[in-house]
C-alpha cells in the first residue's frame, strides 16, 4: 500500500530479508514504498541466484530420506530462513509432506522468511489443520506483514477456513499490512459477518489510522459499508476518530470514508459533536480543496449542518476559476448540482458571480438543475437572487425552465418570492415566460388567497412603482389579470395605480392619463405610467438591475 503504513511495512519486510533491524534502514524511507518493494524482490532474487548451488545440494540431501526423516533433519539442522529457501526447489508435493510434519512454531518462522512469489505453489497444498495453527501463531505474534504477504497466495476457500484464527483487531491489522492492496476487497467479501466486530475493535483499540488506510483501498461499495458501520458507533468513539484524524492530519482519508456512506451515515458522521468542531471541519474542507475532492465535499455538504455548510461555502468562494469549474463538473457528474446551486446561493453577493458566472453553472443542464433545486428544496428565496445575478442568456434559460413548471410549482415560487422580497426577481424572469406561466404567477400575486387561502398579501401600499410596472407589462396580454391587479391596487390604498393599470385594457385613455401624470411627477402612478409607456417624462428612480428586451409576445 502506498501509505505511511505501507512505507513502514515495506521497510520492515526489507529489513527482514536483509537480516537487520528496520531502524538501521530508516534512511531508505525517502525512496518510498514502491521502490522499497522492488528492491526487496531484487534482493530475494539475488539471494536465490547466489545460493542456488548450495540450496540445490541441501535439497538433494533431504531427498535421500523419506519425508518423515527429512522433516526431522530439516527441523534440527536447517534454520527456518534457509528452509524457506527450499520452497520452490523441492517438489511441491514432497515439500507439503515434509511441512505437514514440522512444528507450527518452526513453520511460522519459515513463513517469516518465505519469498511470497514462491509460496503460491506450495501453500494451497497444505491442509487446513497444518495452516490453522501456524496462522494462529502468526496472529499471536502480530506478524501481520508476513500474513499480509501470504494471504494473496491462498485461494478463497482456504482463506475462509483460516479467518477464525484471527481476532477482529488482527484482521484489521492484517488488512492494513496486505502487500497487494487489490486483495482487500476479496478478503473483505470473505468476512461479512466480521465487519461490525472489526469496526468495534478499531474503536476499542484506537485503530483509526488502520481503518482509514484500509477503507481508502476498498472499492466504493465496500468503503460505503465501512462508513455505515463507523456511523453506528457512539459519540465518544466518533470523537476519538475525529481526534485521531486531527492529530495525524488524516482529513482526506476521513473525507473519503464519510463521503462513501449512505445518506443516513453521512448525516450522522458530519453531525456528531466532534465532527462539528471547527478544526475537524477545516480539515475535511481543506483536504477536499487541496486534492480537488469535489464529489466527496459535495456529498458531505449535501447533508451537512449549517456550520460545515458555511465553511464549505467560504472555501468555495476562495477557489480559482479552474477549481470552480471542477466543482461544477463534479456536481454534474455525481448528481449533486443542487448542492452547488445551494452553495452559490449562500455566497456573499459580491462573490456569487464568480461561481454562478462560470460557463457550466447555468448552461442548458445547469439551468434545469437550478430550477429543480428550487422546486425540490423549496428554496426560491435562495435561488431567485442567485438567478438575478446570472448573465442574460443564462437567465433566459432559467426563465424557460421556470416557465415549464406546472401551475402548482409556479404558485409556490410566487408565494416564496413574495414572502422573501424576491418578487421583483421572479417577475423579471416571468417576462421571458410563456403566457400560461405568466398567467399563473399573476393570479397568485394579485390574489394569494386564491391559491392558499388566507396568506400574507404580496402587494400592498409599499409595493414599488417598478414592481407595479413589471406586473403591468406581464399582464398586457391578459386583460383579466390587468383587471385583478387594478382592483388589487385600489384595495391596498393606491387607487391612482389602479387607474393607470386599468388603462392597459383601454389603450385610448393612456394619452390623457399621461398628461395628468407628467404634471404630478412625484406621484407613483405617474412613475408607473411612464415606465409602462417607456417614456422619460418623469425622472425614474435608480434601476436595481437591467432587464433583457422582452421576447416577442405570442398572439393574444
Amino acid at each position, binding site marked *: 500500500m502506498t501509505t505511511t503504513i505501507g512505507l513502514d511495512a515495506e521497510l520492515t519486510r526489507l529489513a527482514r*530479508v*536483509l*537480516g*537487520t533491524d528496520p531502524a*538501521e*534502514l530508516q*534512511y*531508505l524511507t*525517502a*525512496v*518510498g514504498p*514502491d*521502490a522499497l518493494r*522492488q*528492491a526487496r524482490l*531484487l*534482493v530475494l*532474487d*539475488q*539471494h536465490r*541466484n*547466489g*545460493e542456488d*548451488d*548450495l*540450496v540445490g*545440494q*541441501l535439497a*538433494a*540431501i*533431504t531427498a*535421500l*530420506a523419506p519425508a518423515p*526423516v527429512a522433516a*526431522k*533433519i*530439516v527441523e*534440527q*539442522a*536447517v*534454520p527456518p*530462513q*534457509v528452509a524457506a*529457501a527450499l520452497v520452490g526447489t523441492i517438489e511441491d508435493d514432497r515439500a507439503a509432506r515434509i511441512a505437514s510434519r514440522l512444528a507450527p512454531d518452526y513453520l511460522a518462522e519459515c513463513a517469516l522468511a518465505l519469498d511470497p512469489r514462491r509460496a503460491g505453489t506450495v501453500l494451497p497444498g497444505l491442509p487446513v489443520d497444518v495452516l490453522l495453527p501456524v496462522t494462529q501463531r502468526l496472529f499471536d505474534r502480530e506478524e501481520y506483514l508476513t500474513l499480509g504477504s501470504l494471504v494473496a497466495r491462498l485461494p478463497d476457500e482456504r482463506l475462509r477456513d483460516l479467518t477464525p484464527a484471527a481476532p477482529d483487531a488482527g484482521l484489521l491489522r492484517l488488512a492494513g499490512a496486505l502487500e497487494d492492496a487489490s486483495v482487500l476487497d476479496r478478503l473483505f467479501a470473505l468476512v461479512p459477518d466480521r465487519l461490525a466486530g472489526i469496526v468495534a475493535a478499531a474503536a476499542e483499540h484506537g485503530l483509526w489510522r488502520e481503518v482509514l488506510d484500509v477503507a481508502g483501498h476498498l472499492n466504493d461499495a465496500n468503503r460505503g459499508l465501512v462508513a455505515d458501520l463507523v456511523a453506528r458507533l457512539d459519540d465518544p468513539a466518533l470523537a476519538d476518530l475525529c481526534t485521531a484524524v486531527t492529530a495525524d492530519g488524516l482529513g482526506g482519508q476521513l473525507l473519503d470514508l464519510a463521503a462513501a456512506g449512505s445518506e443516513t451515515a453521512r448525516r450522522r458522521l458530519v453531525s456528531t459533536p466532534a465532527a462539528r468542531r471547527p478544526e475537524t471541519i477545516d480539515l475535511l474542507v481543506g483536504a477536499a480543496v487541496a486534492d480537488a475532492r469535489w464529489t466527496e465535499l459535495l456529498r458531505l455538504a449535501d447533508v451537512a449542518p449549517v456550520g460545515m455548510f458555511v465553511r464549505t461555502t467560504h472555501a468555495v468562494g476562495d477557489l480559482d476559476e479552474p477549481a470552480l469549474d471542477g466543482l461544477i463538473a463534479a456536481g454534474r457528474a455525481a448528481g449533486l448540482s443542487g448542492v452547488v446551486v445551494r452553495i452559490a446561493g449562500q455566497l456573499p453577493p459580491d462573490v456569487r458571480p464568480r461561481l454562478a458566472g462560470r460557463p457550466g453553472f447555468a448552461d442548458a443542464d445547469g439551468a434545469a438543475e437550478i430550477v429543480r433545486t428550487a422546486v425540490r428544496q423549496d428554496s426560491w428565496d435562495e435561488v431567485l437572487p442567485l438567478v438575478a445575478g446570472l448573465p442574460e442568456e443564462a437567465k433566459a434559460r432559467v426563465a424557460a425552465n421556470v416557465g415549464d413548471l406546472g401551475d402548482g410549482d409556479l404558485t409556490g415560487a410566487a408565494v416564496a418570492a413574495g414572502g422573501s422580497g424576491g418578487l421583483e426577481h421572479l417577475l423579471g424572469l416571468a417576462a421571458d415566460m410563456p403566457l400560461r406561466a405568466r398567467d399563473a404567477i399573476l393570479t397568485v400575486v394579485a390574489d394569494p388567497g386564491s391559491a392558499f387561502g388566507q396568506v400574507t398579501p404580496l402587494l400592498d401600499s409599499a409595493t414599488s412603482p417598478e414592481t407595479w410596472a413589471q406586473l403591468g407589462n406581464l399582464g398586457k396580454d391578459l386583460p383579466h389579470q390587468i383587471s385583478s391587479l387594478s382592483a388589487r391596487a385600489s384595495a391596498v390604498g393606491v387607487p391612482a395605480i389602479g387607474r393607470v393599470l386599468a388603462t392597459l385594457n383601454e389603450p385610448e385613455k393612456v394619452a390623457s392619463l399621461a398628461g395628468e401624470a407628467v404634471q404630478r411627477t412625484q406621484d407613483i402612478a405617474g412613475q408607473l405610467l411612464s415606465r409602462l409607456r417607456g417614456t422619460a417624462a418623469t425622472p425614474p428612480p435608480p434601476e436595481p438591475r437591467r432587464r433583457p428586451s422582452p421576447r416577442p409576445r405570442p398572439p393574444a
Partner: protein
Amino acid sequence: MSDLGILEGALGAAVPHEFAALSDEQLHAFAAALVAARSRRRQQVQAAISGALDLLPAPAREAARKVPGTA
C-alpha cells in the same frame, strides 16, 4: 563507477530510479548491507548442509557424499 552504480553492483541489477534520491553515504550503507546479508546467507546454507549430512542415516549419508559439492 558512480555511487548508484556501486549499489547496482552490490545488488546485481538496476535499482529503481527512486534510489537516486539517496545521498552517497546512504547508497554506500545500503550496498554494504546487501553484501553482508548475501555473505551471511551463504554461511547459513553451508552450515545447514553440514548439519543435514550429519543427521542422515548412514546409507543415505554415503549417497549424499556423491552429491556434487558435498564431498
